[in-house]
């Protein structure tokens, strides 16, 4: 089994939370002192992500084991999986219709370059759908 990057323990999550808080605090102080830079923004973003990861991990640890089992059942429930698949399938067509509307709007506004960009996105959307379809057709 692959070794997890972060150990699922209270100590690791508290450490993540602490490191994140230090990074964010350092970023805020540095900005306040006028040392604004891209690296600083990156550090603050990293700190926020670390704090979020730590907080989520701590909450997950506090959750009751019976709740975890129910969550797993709900996640793997075959009816729910089917609903998820149907929703994803419908979403594909909704997104396609949305992109068509955007293309139409760009054509009417005479914005040709953004229009070509959206047409490219549509092509990518359809190509990925067909590619995944062909892959599943072989594997199932």
């Amino acid at each position: 089994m692959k070794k997890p990057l972060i150990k699922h323990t209270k100590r690791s999550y508290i450490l993540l939370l602490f490191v994140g808080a230090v990074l964010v605090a350092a970023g805020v102080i540095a900005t306040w002192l006028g040392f604004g830079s891209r690296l600083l923004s990156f550090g603050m973003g990293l700190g926020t992500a670390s704090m979020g990861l730590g907080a989520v991990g701590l909450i997950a640890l506090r959750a009751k084991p019976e709740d975890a089992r129910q969550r797993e059942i709900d996640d793997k429930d075959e009816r729910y999986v089917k609903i998820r698949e149907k929703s994803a399938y419908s979403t594909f067509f909704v997104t396609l219709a949305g992109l068509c509307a955007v293309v139409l709007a760009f054509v009417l506004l005479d914005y040709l370059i953004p229009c070509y960009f959206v047409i490219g996105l549509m092509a990518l959307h359809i190509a990925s759908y067909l590619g995944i379809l062909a892959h599943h057709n072989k594997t199932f």
Partner: protein
Amino acid sequence: MKNRLEDIRRERGIRQETLADALAVSRQTISSLENGRYNPSISLAFKIAHFFGMRIEDIFIYEEETV
């Protein structure tokens, strides 16, 4: 596809929650099965039949679709 799941479950005095827990599915799935809104996969149908100690065809009634 019709089924006798609700009748069989009630006959045996089993709650939907208990059945759902034994089959590792959600209670909503049991409810949908009983209402005939959802047809189970073959493996879930086998699990249900095993749970009640019956054959699949004693629980699920296959009806050919008319075109």
